[in-house]
C-alpha cells in the first residue's frame, strides 16, 4: 500500500512470512509505483513488468530474461522500519534511535488531519519526536505521520482496556478543533 512521509512516496508491504517492509515507491526499471505491485512469497513484484525485489530491496528476477541474474545495482530504495503496538514505523534517514515501544497499548485507529504534524504537536503542546502522549484514563498516545506542510495522519494508540469507541470519538473531536484552530 502507498503512504507518504515528509513528502516522500513510500510503498509498504508485508511478505508472506509476516515481515514488513517500507520502500521508496518507485521501481528502478521504469519508475512505476511499487505500491501498485503484488507480493509473491518474500518478494514484491512490480505490476508493470513483474520485476521482483527481495528482502534487501535487490532485484531477484526479471521475467523478460528468466535466465539472467539481475545485476546488484538494480535495487529498490529501502528504509529502516519496525512494527510496534500495531503501528508501522519508518526512519527515512539513518538513525541510532531505537523505535519507541508502547507496552500495554494497542493501535485503535488512524485519522487524517488537515494540519502539519508540527501544528498538531503544538496544539497538544509538549510532544516528543512525533508522538503526543495524552494520558488520561485511556492512556492515549498519538503517533504522528507527517505527510506535507498541511497534512498529517494521527495513529492513535490506547491502553488495551480502553473503550475503543470512546477513543475514536475523542480523536475526531480533537481533529475538529485542530482544524478549526487553523481555519
Amino acid at each position, binding site marked *: 500500500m502507498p503512504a507518504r512521509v515528509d513528502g516522500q512516496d513510500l510503498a509498504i508491504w508485508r511478505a508472506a512470512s509476516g515481515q514488513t517492509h517500507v520502500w521508496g515507491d518507485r521501481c528502478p526499471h521504469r519508475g512505476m509505483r511499487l505500491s501498485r505491485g503484488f507480493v509473491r512469497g518474500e518478494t514484491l513484484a512490480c*505490476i508493470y513488468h513483474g520485476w521482483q525485489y527481495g528482502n534487501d530491496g535487490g532485484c531477484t528476477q526479471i521475467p523478460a530474461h528468466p535466465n539472467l541474474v539481475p545485476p546488484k545495482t538494480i535495487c529498490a530504495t529501502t528504509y529502516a522500519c519496525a512494527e510496534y503496538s500495531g503501528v508501522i514505523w519508518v526512519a527515512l534517514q539513518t538513525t541510532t534511535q531505537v523505535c519507541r515501544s508502547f507496552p500495554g497499548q494497542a493501535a485503535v485507529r488512524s485519522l487524517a488531519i488537515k494540519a502539519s504534524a508540527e501544528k498538531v504537536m503544538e496544539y497538544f503542546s509538549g510532544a516528543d519526536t512525533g508522538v503526543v502522549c495524552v494520558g488520561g484514563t485511556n492512556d492515549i498516545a498519538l503517533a504522528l505521520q507527517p505527510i506535507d506542510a498541511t497534512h498529517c495522519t494521527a495513529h492513535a494508540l490506547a491502553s488495551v482496556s480502553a473503550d475503543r469507541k470512546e477513543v475514536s470519538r475523542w480523536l475526531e473531536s480533537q481533529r475538529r478543533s485542530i482544524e478549526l484552530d487553523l481555519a
Partner: protein
Amino acid sequence: MTAGIADHWYPVAMCSGISSPRDTRLLGQEITIGREGEQFWVRDVHGKTLPAIARYGHLWTSPGQPNRDLFSIPEAEAPGRRLVDCGAVRVKCSPLRAVENFLDIAHFPFVHTDILGAEPYTEVSRYEVQIREEVDEVWATKVKFFQPQAARSAAGGITTEYMYRVAAPTSAVLYKTCPPRPGEWDIITLFVQPLTEELCDVWPWMALYDDTSPLAELVSFQQMIFMQDRSILESQIPRKLPLDPGMEAPTQADLTSVAYRRWLKRIGFTYGAQVVAA
C-alpha cells in the same frame, strides 16, 4: 518552443469527429479546429492558419514549419483493409511515456494478462533495433512474443511477430502478425496529441484484415487495452520521461525504448522529457 519541437506533425482530432469548430490544445497552446466541406482547418490563438493534413483517420497540424511531409504508412493504403477509428483515451502522463509504453512488449503478461501475454511466457527474445538515419525514424524488427489472444480475430494462443516504428516523436506504428492472413501485417498505430508536457490524448487507429469482427468489438478491444495501459502510465514517477541514462535501469528487452530515448535526445525533442537527472 524550439524548432526541434514545433516543426513536427501532431494529431489533434479524429476527422470523423469534427463537425462544428472546436477548441483543443497542442503543446500547451490553445488551437481551434474545424471543417468546411471536405477541407479541414486549424488556427492558433491569434487566428493564424496552421498547416492541416487529413490522413489516417486523423487531422494533423504543426505549430511550426515542418520540413517534410507527414510520414506515410503505405501498407495501410492497400485495398481490403478495414480502417478503424478508436477515439481518444486521455492520459495524465507525458506524451513520450505513452509512446514508450506502446513500444514495450515485456509488460504484456502483467498489464494485459491473458490477452496480450501470460505467465510463464514472459521471456523477450533478442530483436533488432535501428535508428534509420535516412528516414530519421526508430525501427524495431523481429520482435516475437507469445500471446494468448493477440487480436480480436485470434482464436487461441500464438507467437506473434511485431515490428515497431517511431515515425514522429509522438507517433508510432505497430506492424503485427495478422491471424486470418499469414504473410500480411495488421497495422495498429498510436497517435499521441501532446496537450501539455504531462497530459495527452492517445488516438489509437488500426488498418486491419478482419472482415468478421463487429466494429464495436474491435474498438472496445483496443479501448480495453489502452485503459489497462493508462493505469500504469498515470502511476510512473517522474511523470516526464527521463532522457538521461542512469535515472532508470533498462535491460535487453528495452532496446526499443533505449533507442527512442536516444533519438529524442539527438533531435532535441524535450517536450515531456526530463533532461536533467533529478
